[in-house]
Structures are given as structure tokens and as C-alpha cells.
């Protein structure tokens, strides 16, 4: 056990810090849930990519640096420390990317990874359907063989695709065997959003911005080359993506430790009111505990162990920590918390709204608790 970073990691940290100091925009970019903000964030992705900072843990051939998970965590710490922009490519690089690296054919990797890394192609997730949310296996969107037999026709409707209104590509699962039960007979597809038959309806979210979209598929032609993994084996491919979503790669701890540090600053600015102290301490410790847990998990991964159902603990913990940090900040702001001012109140309020989605997306925390109980504690299914 050694909780210090070695010289190589420290050198990497210094390099990342220097680059970020030189390149992070001084003014915050417009919200990435707007059309203009989306493109501004895409430009930032391109800038990251051109100096090989967009996907540091990917192989060099696809635009990464081939560094390990610990170095990735170091990069993330520096990224949040620098208050760099949100990652508009996150669904691609953090969710689909690892799945492509695991299940993709060489041709698929070559075709899809580099433009994903560069921000040229930004991905959204076609997962949930109106009647398949928590019950993801209830998916009804279907894929049938096309006339030529060399591809598929997609039909159906997906929803809650974050930034689906602006994305270039979509990954999702479709039912290929209508006879098969629930988790079986699903296949994982990669679909261009400008393919004929794809229609997008933006869904304004709670703050009025177009955070997500419904995607309608009407006889959308997709070649075999855009199937990820085996036919009818989409569920296990999807579970790999879901594991990333809940586990290590979507929510790096630096996000929360940075927010907790800002919370302590706010607490000091507000004169350290004694009645807020306990909540501030809890928020700070939970963020710190998440960081430690991530190092712990990464160390197991580095030793060759797989991330198991503990990922569901992760999802519950980071989502509730995020809510708690922001709730505590709003309590410190008192009656000013509702003001949409730029700067402190507004930023915390934005963060609060975003945090409230945490216990819902990526599998509600109710579903995660079932997973923890059944898979970590061995309790029987209901």
C-alpha cells in the first residue's frame, strides 16, 4: 500500500496542469445543452484532442496516450482543478469508447474511435424507451433484417438521449429476436443521426434548456458493420457500457472533491455558520471517501481484478454525494439560492438541478439498491 504517486505520474500531472493552464478558456462556455454551447464545447474537444488530452487512457493509435487508469485519475484531478469545460463528448468517450475497445472489430475501432476522440463525431445514448426506463429489458424498438440481408431496418422510439438534439451518432439496443424473453434477443447498434428515417424531438428539461431528446426510428437502414458485438448479444455489451456509466469512468472523483472544496470556500465566505458545519463536513468527507474508493477500485483493476456489482454502490454514492454538496451550498446561500445570478448562486443552482438527475439516470438508485442487495448480499430476487 502506497498512496503517493510515483515520479512518472507526477511528471504527467505537471504536464497536464501546464497545458490546461495555458488552454482552458477564461470565460465559461455557454451551456452545452444549447446549440451554440454544444458547438463551443465541440471546439474545446478538438483542442484537447490536438494535444492528445481528450482520451489519455486510450491506445495511442486511436488518439490517446495509452496511460493507465491511475494516470487518467490524475488527469481528471487536474482537469477539474483547472475548472475546464464540461465534456460534451462524454457519452462517447466514457461510455461507448470502453465498450468499443472491448467488443469492437478492428474496423469499427478504426472507423469510430478517432473521430469520437477528436469531437468530430459526438455520440448520444439510445437506451431508454417510454415504457422501458428502470425496466430496461422491456425494450420494444426492433431491428429486422433488410431485404438485401446485409443490414438491418430499425424501428421504434428512444428517449432521454442527453444532447440527442445535437449529436452526430447514437448507440443503442434494439430487439432483434421478438420471440426471445426480455434480456435475450437484443442487439447493440451504432446509428448515424442523419440517416434517413431518424427524427429527433428535443425535450426541454426542468430549466427550460434542451438537455435531452426523443429519437424516432422509421425504417432506418443500418449495415452489419454497425452492429457492436454479436447479434442477439446486445444485453451483455450494454451491461459493459452500463458498468462504465455507474462505475469508474463516467464520474471521476475530482468532480466532487473540487465541488467540496468550493463548498468549504463558500462556508468560509458566509462566516462559517455553526449550524451548517456538520453538513459541510459530511459533504467534504463523502467526496473524499469517493476519491479514496476510486483509488481502491483502480488499484484492484490495476491488479487485474474486474469491477463487479460494487459499481452499483458507486452510483448510489456519487449521485447522493452530489445532491448533498449542492443542497448544503444552497442552504448556505439562504434566500439568495433561488437567484439566477451569474457567479456563485447561479452556478450552485445549476449544479443542484443537474445533481437531482443523478439518482434517476444510469439506472435509478432504487434499481441500484436492488442490485447491491441481490448481487453483493445475495438476497433473493423479489
Amino acid at each position: 500500500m502506497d498512496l503517493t504517486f510515483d515520479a512518472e505520474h507526477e511528471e504527467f500531472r505537471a504536464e497536464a496542469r501546464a497545458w490546461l493552464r495555458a488552454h482552458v478558456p477564461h470565460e465559461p462556455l455557454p451551456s452545452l445543452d444549447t446549440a451554440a454551447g454544444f458547438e463551443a464545447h465541440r471546439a474545446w474537444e478538438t483542442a484537447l484532442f490536438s494535444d492528445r488530452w481528450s482520451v489519455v487512457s486510450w491506445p495511442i493509435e486511436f488518439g490517446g496516450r495509452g496511460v493507465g487508469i491511475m494516470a487518467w485519475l490524475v488527469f481528471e484531478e487536474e482537469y477539474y482543478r483547472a475548472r475546464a469545460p464540461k465534456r460534451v463528448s462524454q457519452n462517447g468517450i466514457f461510455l461507448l469508447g470502453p465498450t468499443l475497445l472491448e467488443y469492437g472489430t478492428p474496423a469499427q475501432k478504426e472507423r469510430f474511435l478517432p473521430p469520437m476522440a477528436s469531437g468530430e463525431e459526438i455520440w448520444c445514448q439510445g437506451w431508454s424507451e417510454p415504457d422501458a426506463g428502470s425496466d430496461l429489458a422491456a425494450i420494444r424498438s426492433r431491428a429486422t433484417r433488410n431485404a438485401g440481408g446485409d443490414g438491418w431496418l430499425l424501428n421504434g422510439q428512444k428517449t432521454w438521449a442527453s444532447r440527442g438534439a445535437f449529436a452526430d451518432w447514437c448507440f443503442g439496443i434494439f430487439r432483434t429476436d421478438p420471440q426471445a424473453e426480455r434480456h435475450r434477443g437484443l442487439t447493440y447498434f451504432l446509428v448515424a443521426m442523419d440517416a434517413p428515417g431518424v427524427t429527433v424531438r428535443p425535450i426541454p428539461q426542468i430549466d427550460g434548456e434542451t438537455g435531452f431528446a426523443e429519437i424516432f426510428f422509421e425504417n432506418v437502414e443500418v449495415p452489419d458493420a454497425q452492429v457492436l458485438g454479436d447479434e442477439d448479444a446486445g444485453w451483455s455489451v450494454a451491461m459493459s457500457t452500463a458498468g462504465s456509466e455507474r462505475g469508474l469512468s463516467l464520474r471521476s472523483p475530482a468532480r466532487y472533491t473540487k465541488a467540496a472544496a468550493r463548498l468549504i470556500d463558500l462556508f468560509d465566505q458566509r462566516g462559517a455558520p455553526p449550524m451548517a458545519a456538520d453538513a459541510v463536513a459530511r459533504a467534504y468527507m463523502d467526496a473524499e471517501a469517493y476519491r479514496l474508493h476510486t483509488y481502491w477500485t483502480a488499484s484492484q483493476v490495476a491488479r487485474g481484478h474486474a469491477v463487479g456489482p460494487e459499481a452499483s454502490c458507486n452510483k448510489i454514492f456519487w449521485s447522493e454525494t452530489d445532491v448533498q454538496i449542492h443542497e448544503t451550498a444552497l442552504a448556505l446561500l439562504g434566500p439568495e439560492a433561488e437567484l439566477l445570478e451569474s457567479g456563485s448562486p447561479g452556478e450552485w443552482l445549476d449544479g443542484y438541478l443537474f445533481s437531482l438527475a443523478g439518482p434517476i439516470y444510469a439506472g435509478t438508485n432504487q434499481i441500484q439498491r436492488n442490485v447491491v442487495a441481490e448481487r453483493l448480499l445475495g438476497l433473493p430476487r423479489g
Partner: protein
Amino acid sequence: MDFSFSDEQVELRHAVRHALAREFPLDALRVTVQTTADERAERAGARWRMLAELGAPALLVPETAGGLGLSDVDLVGVLEEAGWSALPEPLLETAGLAAPMLATLLPVAPAAGALHALVSGKAPLAVGGIDIGPGGPSSPTAVTPDGMLRTPRVVGARTATVYLLACRDPDSGWQLHAVPAADCTLAPTPTLDGTRDLSTVHWPLSSETLLAYGVAAEASVGLMADRGAAGSAALLIGLADRMITMAADYAKERHQFGKPVGSFQAVKHLLADARVKLEFARPATYRAAWSLASAQPSVSHDASMAKAMASDAADLAARVALQVHGAIGYTWECDLHFFMKRAWALSATWGDAATHRQLVLAQARRRGVPARRSDPGT
């Protein structure tokens, strides 16, 4: 000991609920945010006239001054209904705070003028300049370099013709003014809840608008703070009830895993916890209304307890309702967000739950809840 509402009080509440359901359906909330300023003002005006017809704004004004001569116990149900429907108008500020305060300050000229405007039913009054902190009422009003006063977060200023404003000087203490809107400069403040009317008001300090100063103003401000806490508790109770009802209805309809999500214990227990919190916040809120109506010495304690419990109940109801709705609840199309945003705003104004817990504890420790007719057993 009779802790229940009279038949008339129950009827008044029902009348308000039905009138609001008719004149202010859920769609109207959406329109309030998305329409032009003119259209918005017109609709607000129509709603206010309807409330005036029900007698709501002047409920607490004595009959001799043209009001209904009723009490906070009559008002509390009306406020609960205003919360249930997320009414945007400053009913609490006008009917619950300005009206009884102005009535006690008669015949001071600015009070008489403001009360006359209120009783006419044409427009609400705006109220601002009092916050509640762990030490009790505090003043957010500041002096600007041009000698004017600047009061942030004044509620209802965009439609009111008279503003009831407080300020505090470290030396001379509190002052309370009734300032004509025409004398003020107004900067609307954008808030998360787009249906809420908050502004920063610049106003001139003048003896012509003075309602009270010194000890009298301090007592008035203290009582307004109690009424603000108790009244926003009533609004929050209505909001909490509505959010729990919406979530329970949704949980009956929405199916996952082949059955209504409301049949899963996880969903049931979330909603049950919210329902229990509401169940116990309610009598505390009604008690505060009674203490105000009957001028109990325990009124500050009772108002603080109501606000603490109602804020917690509404915050929990919002969290639970959102979680039960899932992603749908996170959309603009679902009505839930209007109620959540209002609940978040009200939960943080007039002192949040933690602040009021401090105030309650301080009073309980000082045995500051003086014996009612007899000490109730503790």
C-alpha cells in the same frame, strides 16, 4: 380544546380551491412563464380580481376598514390552497402580512392609503426588507451611494402599487414604510421559479411614507416575520400535498416490470415517508395560525416550528416526487417542476428549516414558551 376548523373555514377553503382550479388550471402556470409581459400582467390582474371577489386579500382587515374581519385561522386554509395551486400572486404578502399590519397602524396616513388600495382589490401589495436569521429578523436593505435604499428580493413589486418596505439602521433600529410604486425604481430579479415576482427595489427614505419606527417598528417587524414564517409554512404544506398527490397518481399509472411502479415497496415507502412528514407538519402549521390569531405569547416559537416542519416536509416531498416521476419529472413538460421550484424558493425564504430549529431551541431553552392557561405537562 378544539383543534379543528369550523364549517365556514372548511367552506372558504373549498371555495378557494374550486375557484383556483377553474381560473388557474395547471396550463396557466406554463403560460405565465412563456407569455409576454403584457399578457402575463393581464392574467395576473384577472386572477387577483377573482381572489378579491372571494374576499381573500382583505380577509384579515377589520370590517370597519372594509375588510372581512376574519383571522389567521381563516387565512391558513386559503394559503394552503394557494400553495396547492402554486398561485404566483403575492397573496401571503398582501393578505397575510400587509393587511393586518396596516390595519393595526391606522389611522397613520400612509397606512390608511395603502389599506384603501388593498381593500379596493385592484392590486396586491408588495412586501420586502425582512429576512430571518438564527438571531431573528434581519435587514437585507442597504443604503446606496445616491442616498436611496436598496431592498433585494421584494415580492410582488411588478404588479403592486404600494410597497411595504422595512429597513434597519444600527443606531435607530427598524423603520417600516408604505412607499408608492411610483417613487421607486424596480429591477426585476430572475429566479429559478419563473412564476415568482421578485425584484430589487430602490426607494427614497421619507417621513411621508413612514408607518412606524423604534419599538413599534421592531414589534411590527417581529410580527411580520412570524406571519411570514407561519404563512409560508401554509403555502409549503399545500405544495407538499400537491407534489405527493401528483407523484402518487403517476405511480398508479406508470408501469415497469409489468406492474404499476406504485406497487413496488421502494416507491411506496418513499411516498409514505413524505406523507408522514406532511401529516405532522400540518397541525404545527395550524397551531401557528391560531397563535397569531389569538396573540399567544408563544407565537414566535409556534411560527418557527411551523416553518421548520413545513419546509422539511416540502423539501422531502419535492425530492420524493421527482424520484418517483423519474426522468419525466425532470422535463419542462411535466408540471411537477413548477411546484418543486416554488417549494425550494419558499423553503429558503423567511428563514430555512435549520434557522428556525435554532430559534425554536433557543426559546424552548429559555422556557420561552410561556405557560398557556396551564403548562401542558412538560
